[in-house]
């Protein structure tokens, strides 16, 4: 009940802040870039708030619990992505003054076709990233209220579409900044209080020693809603709906729906797709084979490091900085804010392994953040902390989904809807229709994607972004010889390779050798170099633009040279 109230208040606060923003959203320019007058701290909190999604709030802890410390490369890569953005993209792109990546592509290469191609990529990445947010919303609402899966999707989808369509980014900037602090508070406070309450980390043997996750001193009861295929790591007796049974070590069984009871201290059976690991192995960030192999870790780091700059909803926000140096200052602050948040998800992974081992049986480790507080601290304190994390999770879906929807609807209404000069009123109306349309398709996909892994969709989005927009941005900004043909073929080659690998991996399944499996699951290590090589190779065969000096000046010329009045250096004011 408290959890429902907490979630409702986050939703209401979001609507309220959005409505407050509506009154400020006067012009189309306001709607898109909040007039570029937001201070670095507001901007940094907004960028971080938009970035910390379901994958960060629920996914990291869940994956940590399931596969072990190898999951903790994710927060490192997610944060380091902003270092890449700071070093190579933030200031030049802000100086260049484009609204979106398609805008940049067209201006830099003087080609409307490249713009259309970039717009298609924006929509693809946007949809891929919206689906897991909506899926997370459906799961969370189900976890705290028992509501059907589709209801969470409907509620979050409707709030976000309404807010974005009516408020645009002016509202969203403050909403996002607010959401960052909600999320950080909601993940940090329960983590700290639970550690204090439990007197540190319990059951070290299961965490870092020889032990497997096991039933507590009073045994373990798991309610299975559906039949579940599991593997018993050790021989154990158990009862199912009261009937005594025995399983041999390493035996795989399909447990029917019902009430599973394990005796005290028994090693818990794990759901299909999870490998039972003793603590020592579980705590290793890199280990040969499986989901922690060095090839997979490096490919994942590459995808997150280079993919962040290519997420369409992130770059848009950099245009709300007044100039290049402000864009740099903002990005440094983002590194700090993200670092602060990412201190905490691992706490839930560690505690979850010991305190909620039933999630290994059901395979639903994604809900560990939501489930943990009430189990670890029975009674009112646990209930209150549980309500807090539920509110934080809702803030995560709403903020990321809002940011994505701003990009998706901007791209739909500006780039694909027809770009002939229209009145401001008609442009605004197009943006609003696009906000609605941009939400309907991912919502339908999310309804169908109930069985798809959240981390799969997120990893895919990063891999595609790193293989398309990353080379476009890096070469477009730092290499004057990039041509239209080069950029287009590079983006197509990178995007198709990345998607092709993942689809192939899904179709042919496991058992193809360690390196092959790792690259099919996370293809960035192959597709990113390929995209760069294609862009450079094809560009070298063509001629660079005749006005390349002006282009480079617009990207790299510092502010205050007085070049603006000459019509150089700043394309859009």
């Amino acid at each position, binding site marked *: 009940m408290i959890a429902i109230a907490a979630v409702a208040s986050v939703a209401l606060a979001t609507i309220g802040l959005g409505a407050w923003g509506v009154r400020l959203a006067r012009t189309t320019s306001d709607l898109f870039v909040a007039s570029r007058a937001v201070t670095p701290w507001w901007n940094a909190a907004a960028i971080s708030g938009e970035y910390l999604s379901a994958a960060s709030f629920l996914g990291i802890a869940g994956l940590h619990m399931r596969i072990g*410390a190898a999951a*903790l*490369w994710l*927060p*490192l890569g997610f*944060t*380091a992505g*902003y*270092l*890449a953005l*700071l*070093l*190579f993209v933030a*200031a030049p792109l802000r100086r260049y003054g484009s609204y979106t990546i398609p805008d940049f592509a067209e201006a830099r290469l003087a080609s409307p076709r490249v713009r259309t191609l970039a717009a298609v990529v924006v929509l693809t990445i946007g949809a891929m990233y919206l689906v897991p947010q909506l899926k997370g919303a459906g799961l969370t609402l189900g976890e705290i209220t028992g509501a059907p899966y589709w209801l969470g999707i409907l509620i979050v989808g409707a709030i976000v579409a309404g807010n974005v369509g009516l408020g645009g980014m002016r509202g969203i900037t403050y909403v996002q900044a607010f959401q960052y602090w909600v999320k950080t508070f909601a993940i940090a406070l329960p983590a700290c209080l639970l550690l204090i309450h439990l007197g*540190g*980390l319990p059951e*070290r043997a299961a965490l*870092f020693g020889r032990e497997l996750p096991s039933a507590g001193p009073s045994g373990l009861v798991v309610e299975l809603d559906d039949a579940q295929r599991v593997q018993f790591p050790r021989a154990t007796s158990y009862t199912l709906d009261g009937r005594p049974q025995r399983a041999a070590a390493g035996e795989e069984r399909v447990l029917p729906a019902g009430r599973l009871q394990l005796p005290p201290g028994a090693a818990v059976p794990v759901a299909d797709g999870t490998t039972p690991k003793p603590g*020592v192995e579980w*705590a*290793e*960030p*890199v*280990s040969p084979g499986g989901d922690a192999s*060095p090839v997979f*870790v*490096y490919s994942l*780091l590459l995808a997150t*490091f280079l993919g962040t700059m290519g997420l369409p909803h992130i770059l848009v926000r950099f245009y709300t900085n007044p100039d*290049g*140096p402000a864009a*740099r*200052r903002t*990005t*440094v602050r983002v*590194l*700090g804010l993200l*670092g602060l948040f*990412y*201190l905490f998800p*691992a706490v839930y992974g560690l505690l979850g392994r010991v305190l909620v081992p039933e999630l290994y049986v059901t395979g639903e480790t994604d809900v560990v953040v939501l489930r943990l507080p009430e189990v670890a601290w029975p009674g009112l304190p646990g209930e209150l902390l549980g309500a807090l994390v539920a509110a934080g999770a809702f803030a995560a879906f709403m903020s990321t989904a809002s940011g994505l929807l701003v990009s998706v609807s901007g791209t739909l209404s500006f780039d694909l809807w027809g770009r002939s000069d229209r009145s401001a009123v008609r442009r605004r109306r197009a943006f609003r229709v696009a906000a609605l349309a941009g939400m309907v398709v991912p919502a339908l996909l999310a309804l169908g994607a109930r069985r798809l892994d959240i981390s799969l969709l997120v990893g895919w989005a990063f891999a595609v972004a790193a293989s398309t927009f990353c080379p476009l941005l890096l070469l477009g900004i*730092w290499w004057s010889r990039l041509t239209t043909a080069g950029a287009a073929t590079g983006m197509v080659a990178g995007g198709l390779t990345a998607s092709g690998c993942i689809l192939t991996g899904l179709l042919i399944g496991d058992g193809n050798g360690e390196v092959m499996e790792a690259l099919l699951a996370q293809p960035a290590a192959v597709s990113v170099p390929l995209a760069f090589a294609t862009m450079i190779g094809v560009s070298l065969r063509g001629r660079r633009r005749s*006005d390349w*000096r*002006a282009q*480079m*000046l617009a990207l*790299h*010329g*510092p*502010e*205050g*040279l*007085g*070049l603006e009045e*000459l019509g*150089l250096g700043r394309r859009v004011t």
Partner: protein
Amino acid sequence: MSARPPRDELAETTAVGEIYLRRLVRAQLGLSLTALLSFGGVFAGLPLALWLAPGVDDVQILGVPLTLVVLCVAVFPVLIGVGRLYERRATALDEAFRDLVGGDAADDEDA
């Protein structure tokens, strides 16, 4: 004409202006790559180091394995430090360039 202010060369995107600009772009890119390599040494070396040095697993700080402390906590201050240093140096490079070619201040002198 030989004493034209650098700003005009830039503004008219002449070959001389290009030399000024190219120097700035190279300096900025060099700085970015230096920052990338200095952080990349840590970032890219970490998986390899943790993989090749199994003894590290046994070291614990307050009962938590060192590898976990490094991965969850220690990397973030390094990240922020590199970012902050880079930001200062990059802004300094921009200012040096402005001084070199003479921005608004040079305008005033001309007038």
